[in-house]
């Protein structure tokens, strides 16, 4: 979201120019185009939630399909409410406590931004809602790591606390104008649309949670197969569509940078998907649909931090590279045998790291040029690499340790892990009192 600054400034300059004749703009006037795209992006990002629910839901056993989908859906409920109450304030308010997170009483219940227009001509409400979607999807991603064995209540409390203590601060550091990662190095750590904030933090937290909670009772000696790959594949399609909002929307404008982001997003996803089926084809002799879907995700995850700075050529490499490394990571996981059930770490964690680090080799020259000037003279890829690595390490460390602490403490009050019986009977029956596929049995 760094790049956008450049272009929003331009935009607002422009709008001011064209209109200064009209009135002394006390606050920037609306750019109806940018607003339109941000409204749309917000909707698209929300579309990722059902998309994710379908993707994850299709991969578990039938008896857990609803419970798994509810992990995504309930995040939509919990995180939205929290975001309005304190999330937006903690993430984008002015730094307090030495910059651990932000706070502004104005943002409580969003009361202070009822009519605010940001530079770029976008009502702050939309920015806030757009960001809210990120706060929703991140914990929903984590859920993949401990699918099929978490208690619903425990999950809800976990994501609530995780959102407050882990997500909001991270988001503040990386995206708030006074966040310290936002100001690291010449032009800050590059995280266009959430490689570190969303994917790395989700992936790492997922890994920690998976280890903390332990594997499923029957893992790995019972083979557990997807209940509905058809739905999983469809979900991947919706995720792809939603990701356009996720990335191109992160330009907070409707212009060149949005176009660039959308383009590389499309390309990286395709490259990732192709790479996966090819690798799989060579390795196993089959090109699986789940592999294709996983490749889409790997590519999308990898391009997320990079969408603002790389060009199509780079996007292809980045997408394919991410897929390759994710594939490896999952093979390794299967060897090691820990139960990151739906590979939240294997794909989001690993993919995010690959993207956030390797993007430096594909940065648009113009960006580096500006960086140099800002750095006063010169700024090398290697310096940026340093910045990126720092950011990644900080995210990994903070999310990892933080998650462990939260789980440890929370577990004292609520059993996060599902009871033996719940796991055996299935989350759907035990926590939700429902069954997902009524049509299968005569009824």
């Amino acid at each position, binding site marked *: 979201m760094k790049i956008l600054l450049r272009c929003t400034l331009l935009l607002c300059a422009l709008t001011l120019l064209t209109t200064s004749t009209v009135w002394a703009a006390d606050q920037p006037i609306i750019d109806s185009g940018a607003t339109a795209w941000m409204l749309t992006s917000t909707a698209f990002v929300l579309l990722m939630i059902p998309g994710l629910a379908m993707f994850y839901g299709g991969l578990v056993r039938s*008896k857990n399909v609803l419970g798994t989908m509810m992990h995504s859906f309930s995040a939509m409920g919990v995180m939205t409410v929290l975001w309005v109450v304190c999330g937006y304030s903690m993430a984008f308010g002015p730094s307090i406590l030495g910059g651990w997170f932000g706070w502004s009483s104005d943002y409580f219940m969003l009361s202070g931004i009822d009519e605010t227009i940001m530079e770029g001509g976008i009502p702050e409400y939309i920015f806030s809602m757009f960001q809210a979607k990120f706060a929703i999807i991140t914990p929903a991603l984590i859920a993949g790591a401990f699918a099929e064995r978490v208690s619903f209540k425990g999950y809800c409390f976990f994501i609530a606390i995780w959102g407050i203590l882990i997500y909001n601060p991270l988001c503040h550091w990386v995206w708030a104008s006074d966040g310290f990662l936002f100001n690291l190095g010449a032009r800050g750590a590059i995280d266009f649309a959430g490689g570190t904030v969303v994917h790395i933090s989700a992936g790492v937290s997922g890994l920690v949670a998976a280890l903390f909670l332990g594997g499923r009772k*029957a893992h790995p000696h*019972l083979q557990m197969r997807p209940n509905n790959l058809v739905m999983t594949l469809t979900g991947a399609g919706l995720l792809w569509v939603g990701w356009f909002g996720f990335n191109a929307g992160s330009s907070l404008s409707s212009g060149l940078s949005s176009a660039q982001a959308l383009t590389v997003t499309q390309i990286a996803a395709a490259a990732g998907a192709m790479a996966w089926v090819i690798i799989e084809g060579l390795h196993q002799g089959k090109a699986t649909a789940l592999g294709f879907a996983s490749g889409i995700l790997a590519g999308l995850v990898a391009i997320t931090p990079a969408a603002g700075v790389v060009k199509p050529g780079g996007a292809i490499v980045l997408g394919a590279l991410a897929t390759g490394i994710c594939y490896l990571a999952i093979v390794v996981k299967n060897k090691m045998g820990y139960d990151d059930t739906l590979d939240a770490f294997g794909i989001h964690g690993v993919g995010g790291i690959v993207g956030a680090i390797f993007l430096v080799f594909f940065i648009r020259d113009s960006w580096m040029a500006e960086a140099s000037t800002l750095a006063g003279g010169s700024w090398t890829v290697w310096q940026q690499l340093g910045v990126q690595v720092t950011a990644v390490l900080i995210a990994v460390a903070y999310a990892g340790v933080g998650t462990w602490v939260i789980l440890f403490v929370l577990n004292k009050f609520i059993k996060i892990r599902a009871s033996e*019986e719940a796991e*055996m*009977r*299935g989350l759907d*029956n035990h926590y939700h*009192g*429902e*069954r997902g596929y009524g049509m*299968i*049995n*005569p*009824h």
Partner: protein
Amino acid sequence: MKFIVAIIRENQLDQVREALIDAGISRISVSNVSGHGRQATTEEIYRGQIVVPNLTANIRIEIGLNDEFVDKACNAIINATKANENGLVGSGKIFILPLEEVIRLRTDERGPKAI
């Protein structure tokens, strides 16, 4: 030879399967059935209304056995379903039917050794 049809709770399949394997019975066929019985079924809830389904989802296990294995199989199933009884009435039935002949398609073997 006997042909056993066991109707068990949906969620006890894994236990039963493992118990059977321990009892040396590795060949079974499993299918979905909906059952109606006296069993107090696990309720489901729809829009705040408790629904006691009049057809509960159960699992049906089919096993062709040689006579000496019948008791082993039955006991395995009985014990496996005892576990996690969690107070619910009724956990199905075992039906034992006579079996006149078995053919193993792969080898054309017939009779006891084909089981």
